[in-house]
C-alpha cells in the first residue's frame, strides 16, 4: 500500500469509506508528517489532537453504519485567517498573537461538519498581504520545491496562502484552505504545483474569516488535483445568513459534474495577457494549455479584455482602502496585543498613544504600507481621484469580462508571470512583488471563479500553473477545463523531500 500521506482528498475519503484504512491511521500519518516538516514552517500551530478527534468520530460513524460526509477522514490544514474556536488565530500577525476565538468560522465549521479534521493552523502572509509568505510575523514559509541547479536557496511558496501551498505540495496535508483577495490561492498553487480554486464571490461565507479586503476576499480549497478541489469546495461553500454578501444559491454537485469533455465549449485567450517581457516558458505553457483544451474538444477564440493593465493599480487602491478600515479594529482594546508606552517623563500612555504604539508594534511593514496607502487614498480630497476612480475602473474590468462571455465560456491565461523565486529576492521592492498577481487580480476584481492548475516544470524544475477564469457561478466550467488540462498535462512532479 502506498504511504497514506501520498493520498489526496478523494482517495482518503473513498479508502476510509471502503475500510482500506481507518481515518485515525490517516490522521496519525499526517500528524507525523507535519511534525517532521518544521523546516518548511508551514504551520503556525499544529493541532494533532484535533485531527485525531475528528478521525475517531469518522471511524466511529463508519463502525455504526452512519452516513459519512464528503470530507470524512480527510486531514487538512486551515489557513490561520479562519477563526477556529479554542485554537489560536493570528492572521500571521503579532497584533493577534495569543488570540483564541470563542467562535468558529462558517467555512471551517462546514469542513468539520463534512468530516474533515484539522492538522493545524497554516502560516500565511500577515493579514493575507503578500505574494511570497515573507510578511508573516511567524517567519517565512519555505517552499518544498528547489531549483534543480543544485543550489539550495530557499524558494517562495507564493502568498498569501503560502503555508497552504507548501503543506499540500509537501504532502503534509491532504488539502488546505486558502483565501484569495487578489490571487492568494492561485499564485501559491501555481508556485508549488498544486490546484487551487477561488469560487465566485459570495460562494463561501466570509463570516469568521479575518478580513483583508471585504469586496474581494473569497475562501477556496487548495489540493493536489481538480477532483479534490471540487470535493472540498463543495464542502466549504454554501449560503450563510450571517454574511450579507453570501450567495443564496444551492451548491452545485461539482464533483459529480466533473467532465473533461469540452466539445462545444469555447475557450477565450485574452490578448492583453500577453504582456511585454513575460517569460517565454510561461508563454510556452500557455500554448500547451490551448492545445490540451483543443484536444479536449474546445474551440479556442481570441478575446480582448482591454482594461487589463489597469486591474493591478486599481486593486492596489481598493484593497488597501478596505484593509485600512478593516484593520482599524486591531487597537489593543478587546483582544490581541496592547502596548502602553510611558513617555520620557514617565507619564502613562493615553488612549490614542496606546492605539498608535500597539499598531506600530503589532503590524508588520507590508501591513503598515497598505494601511497607509489605504488611509491616504480615502483621506479628504483624494477619495474621488483614487478610490472612486478605482471603483469605476473596476466596473470597466467587470464589463470587459461580461463582453467576453458573449464570445467564450471560460478564459485561459497563465496564473503568474514567473515561476517561484528565491525568498528575499523581491522582499525590498513592493512593486515588483505586486506584479506577481498581475494575471490573477482581474478575476478578483470581477468576483469571478478562477482556478490554477499545474501545467509543467520550467527549465529550473519549478512548476508553472495555468489559470482558468469562468463566468459568475460557473465553477463547474472552470473545474472541467482544469480537469481537461490536468488529464493532458500529466503533471506528476512533486518536490523531493529535503526537510
Amino acid at each position: 500500500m502506498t504511504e497514506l500521506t501520498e493520498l489526496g482528498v478523494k482517495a482518503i475519503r473513498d479508502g476510509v469509506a471502503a475500510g482500506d484504512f481507518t481515518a485515525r491511521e490517516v490522521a496519525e500519518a499526517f500528524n507525523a508528517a507535519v511534525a517532521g516538516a518544521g523546516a518548511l514552517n508551514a504551520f503556525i500551530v499544529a493541532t494533532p489532537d484535533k485531527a485525531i478527534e475528528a478521525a475517531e468520530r469518522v471511524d466511529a460513524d463508519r463502525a455504526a453504519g452512519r452516513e459519512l460526509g464528503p470530507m470524512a477522514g480527510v486531514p487538512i490544514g486551515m489557513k490561520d485567517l479562519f477563526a477556529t474556536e479554542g485554537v489560536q488565530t493570528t492572521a500571521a500577525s503579532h497584533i493577534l498573537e495569543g488570540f483564541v476565538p470563542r467562535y468558529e468560522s462558517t467555512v471551517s465549521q462546514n469542513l468539520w461538519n463534512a468530516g474533515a479534521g484539522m492538522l493545524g493552523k497554516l502560516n500565511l502572509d500577515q493579514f493575507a498581504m503578500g505574494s511570497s509568505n515573507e510578511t508573516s510575523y511567524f517567519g517565512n514559509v519555505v517552499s518544498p520545491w528547489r531549483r534543480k541547479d543544485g543550489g539550495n536557496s530557499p524558494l517562495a511558496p507564493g502568498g498569501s496562502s503560502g503555508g497552504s501551498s507548501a503543506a499540500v505540495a509537501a504532502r503534509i496535508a491532504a488539502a488546505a484552505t486558502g483565501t484569495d483577495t487578489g490571487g492568494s490561492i492561485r499564485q501559491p498553487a501555481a508556485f508549488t504545483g498544486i490546484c487551487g480554486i477561488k469560487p465566485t464571490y459570495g460562494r463561501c461565507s466570509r463570516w469568521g474569516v479575518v478580513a483583508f479586503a471585504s469586496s474581494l476576499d473569497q475562501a477556496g480549497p487548495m489540493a493536489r488535483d481538480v477532483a479534490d478541489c471540487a470535493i472540498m469546495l463543495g464542502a466549504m461553500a454554501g449560503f450563510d445568513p450571517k454574511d450579507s454578501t453570501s450567495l443564496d444559491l444551492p451548491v452545485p454537485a461539482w464533483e459529480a459534474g466533473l467532465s473533461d469533455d469540452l466539445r462545444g465549449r469555447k475557450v477565450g485567450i485574452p490578448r492583453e495577457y500577453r504582456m511585454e517581457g513575460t517569460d517565454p516558458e510561461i508563454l510556452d505553457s500557455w500554448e500547451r494549455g490551448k492545445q490540451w483544451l483543443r484536444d479536449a474538444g474546445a474551440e479556442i477564440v481570441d478575446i480582448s479584455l482591454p482594461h487589463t493593465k489597469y486591474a493591478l493599480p486599481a486593486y492596489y487602491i481598493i484593497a488597501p482602502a478596505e484593509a485600512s478600515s478593516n484593520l482599524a479594529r486591531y487597537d489593543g482594546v478587546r483582544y490581541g496585543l496592547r502596548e502602553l508606552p510611558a513617555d520620557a517623563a514617565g507619564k502613562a500612555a493615553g488612549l490614542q498613544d496606546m492605539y498608535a504604539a500597539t499598531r506600530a508594534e503589532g503590524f508588520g511593514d507590508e501591513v503598515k504600507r497598505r494601511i497607509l496607502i489605504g488611509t491616504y487614498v480615502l483621506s479628504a480630497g483624494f477619495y474621488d481621484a483614487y478610490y472612486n476612480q478605482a471603483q469605476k475602473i473596476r466596473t470597466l474590468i467587470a464589463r470587459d469580462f461580461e463582453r467576453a462571455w458573449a464570445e467564450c465560456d471560460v478564459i485561459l491565461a497563465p496564473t503568474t508571470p514567473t515561476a517561484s523565486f528565491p525568498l528575499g529576492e523581491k522582499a525590498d521592492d513592493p512593486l515588483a512583488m505586486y506584479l506577481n498577481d498581475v494575471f490573477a487580480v482581474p478575476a478578483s476584481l470581477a468576483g469571478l471563479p478562477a482556478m490554477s492548475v499545474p501545467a509543467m516544470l520550467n527549465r529550473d524544475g519549478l512548476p508553472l500553473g495555468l489559470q482558468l477564469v469562468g463566468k459568475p457561478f460557473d465553477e463547474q466550467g472552470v473545474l472541467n477545463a482544469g480537469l481537461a488540462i490536468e488529464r493532458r498535462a500529466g503533471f506528476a512532479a512533486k518536490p523531493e523531500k529535503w526537510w
Partner: protein
Amino acid sequence: MSVDQTTVAKIASLARIKMSEDELARMAPELSQILDWVEQLGEVDTSEVEPMTAVIPNSLRLRADEVDADPLTGGNRRDDVLANAPAAEHGFFGVPKVIE
C-alpha cells in the same frame, strides 16, 4: 503624486500607527513609488462610468428583528466577548483614562 515625509507622518497619525523618523524616511519613497504607479488610472476616461457597487448580481438581505436567535450573532455572551481582552475588569473593557 509624490508624498513627502510630513504627509506620511500625517497619514500615519490618522491611521494610528506610531512611526519613527527613520521609518517615515524609509516609507515615504516606497509610498510615493506606489502612488505614482496607481496614478496611471487617471488616464482612463470614466466620466460615463458608475463605480462598482456589487461585483456579483446580488442585493442586500435583511434579517428579522429577533434577539439572540443565533448565539453566533446574538448577545448574552459576556465571557466570550471579554475572554481575550488585555484588561477586562468588573465586566468592562479597561482602557487608559480618557479625558473628554
